[in-house]
């Protein structure tokens, strides 16, 4: 985070829809502050209200109650023209890319500029610049149907950046992509954030996405914000049930194992890839079972988490946790996992 200025402030935001079973609140008194230059994540299960939240930021959805401020200005007070101009300073990308299928890649990137009244040759020049920045200049004359998912999302990113926005809103931008492509797109977003200083709001249901690029995160659950904080803090010490549910793996192993005590080890890049666990087992001469592991080796550092089941012997179990702490790992006991 560069500055500490708030760029987007959401106050008491409520959005209700009329459904088949009457009124239903997609957002319920949401408060958030997004700082200039940060990558802010919003994570939640599907139906938690995160997509509605991001649409309230650029007023694609009009809030039922509450206020959204952009650079200190109450968006609801904008005239139509001011709102169109404001949307140009907030780019947006989507899960399904939403490119114009009948326009070439170059014309897709020119599109927001033409709408803004930029003349054709200037727009084309700027579009070419952007395409080379996202690394697909050679596809300028292709049509979206000829692109892969990753390429499509790059075009969408170039298009969203065409009008020099201050904010980029990403609505499940990597959810339709495979893991390798996802990593490439996330790296591009991070690069854009660093180089251009654009504030990025990431909506996702995948904790991996949050871990990989976000500075801070808000956990959404049941139309409300359950928890907000730095990604590292929330990932290592989730306070709410909703946060825990998103961080801990979904499918749980079924019983039949000795011992009820489990320990969650978080690898946040501070520890190297040395075989700590193997060392521990050798030192204690006691086996532990690995119930879950989701690890990644990024530039020689370990990221991710692991859940192990500790031996039944209470004393040994306690010592094992202590051992992990001594090795510099974040380890905490989790209850009720098995």
């Amino acid at each position, binding site marked *: 985070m560069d500055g500490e200025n708030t760029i987007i402030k959401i106050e008491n935001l409520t959005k209700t829809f009329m459904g088949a079973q009457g009124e239903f609140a997609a957002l319920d008194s949401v408060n958030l502050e997004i700082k200039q230059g940060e990558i802010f994540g919003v994570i939640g299960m599907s139906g938690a209200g995160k997509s509605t939240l991001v649409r309230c930021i650029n007023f694609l959805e009009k809030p039922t109650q509450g206020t959204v401020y952009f650079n200190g200005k109450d968006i609801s007070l904008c005239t139509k023209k001011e709102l169109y101009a404001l*949307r140009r300073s907030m780019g947006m990308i989507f899960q399904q890319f939403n490119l114009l299928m009948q326009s070439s890649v170059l014309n897709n990137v020119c599109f927001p500029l033409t709408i803004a009244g930029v003349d054709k040759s200037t727009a084309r020049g700027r579009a070419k610049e952007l395409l080379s920045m996202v690394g697909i200049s050679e596809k300028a004359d292709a049509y979206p149907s000829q692109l892969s998912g990753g390429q499509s999302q790059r075009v969408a990113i170039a298009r969203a950046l065409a009008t020099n926005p201050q904010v980029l809103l990403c609505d499940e931008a990597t959810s339709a992509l495979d893991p390798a492509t996802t990593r490439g797109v996330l790296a591009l977003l991070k690069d854009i954030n660093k180089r251009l200083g654009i504030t990025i709001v990431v909506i996702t249901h995948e904790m991996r996405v949050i871990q990989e690029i976000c500075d801070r995160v808000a956990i959404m659950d049941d139309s409300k914000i359950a928890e907000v904080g730095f990604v590292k803090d929330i990932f290592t010490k989730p306070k709410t049930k909703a946060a825990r549910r998103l961080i801990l793996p979904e499918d749980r192993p079924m019983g039949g194992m000795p011992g009820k005590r489990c320990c969650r080890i978080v690898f946040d890049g501070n520890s190297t890839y040395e075989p700590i666990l193997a060392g521990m087992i050798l030192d204690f001469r006691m086996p532990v079972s690995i119930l879950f592991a989701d690890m990644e080796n990024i530039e020689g550092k370990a990221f991710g988490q692991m859940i192990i089941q500790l031996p039944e012997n209470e004393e040994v179990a306690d010592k094992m946790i202590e051992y992990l702490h001594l090795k510099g790992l974040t380890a905490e006991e989790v209850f009720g996992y098995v």
Partner: protein
Amino acid sequence: MFNPQILNMIGWGILETLYMTLISTIMAYLFGLPLGIALVVTDQGGIYPMKHLNTVLGTIINLLRSVPFLILLILVFPITQFVTGTTIGPNATVVPLVIGAAPFIARLVESSLKEVDKGIIEAAESMGASPIKIIYKVMIPEARPSLIIGSAIAVTTILSYSAMAGIVAGGGLGDIAIRYGLYRYQTDIMLVTVIMLVIIVQVLQEIGMRLAKIGDKRK
């Protein structure tokens, strides 16, 4: 029996039919296209919802469409008389053809525009595009192949309507078919006019399909 006079008459019939069909199609689109756009835009989930206007437009279109063309032809005689000064001949037939085809075209346009991905429209909105710009820079270009196929359907439907106008001496091939085939039992002449109609429909339909395909950038 196919003396030069008859051939000459059939030749004129073809020209009259094409004239009625094309003029009517163009004029019907002048009304039908904006009407179809209005139906989509003012719809509840549209980019500029106007519930009441949408209901009124929908009802008028349904009313007009539920009148069989043969009845409409006679029903609008006063209007035809007022506009063209006559109720017979190809010029007079253009009036009921436009009135009959415009609501049909509005529905065709509506269904083409509704095929446009909602996400693409939302993306355009997120870029600060006004509803007018979304209509002519997103919805129409994106629906172009489907709109062209729709126009091929419209033109062939109008062609068959124009043949029906033969019953009230509306000119064209239909007129010939009814005069010779029905009133004089000269089935051979009727057969020739029918074959001519079939060929014209085939050609127009094929042109429409090819144009749609050439313009479509989706695979």
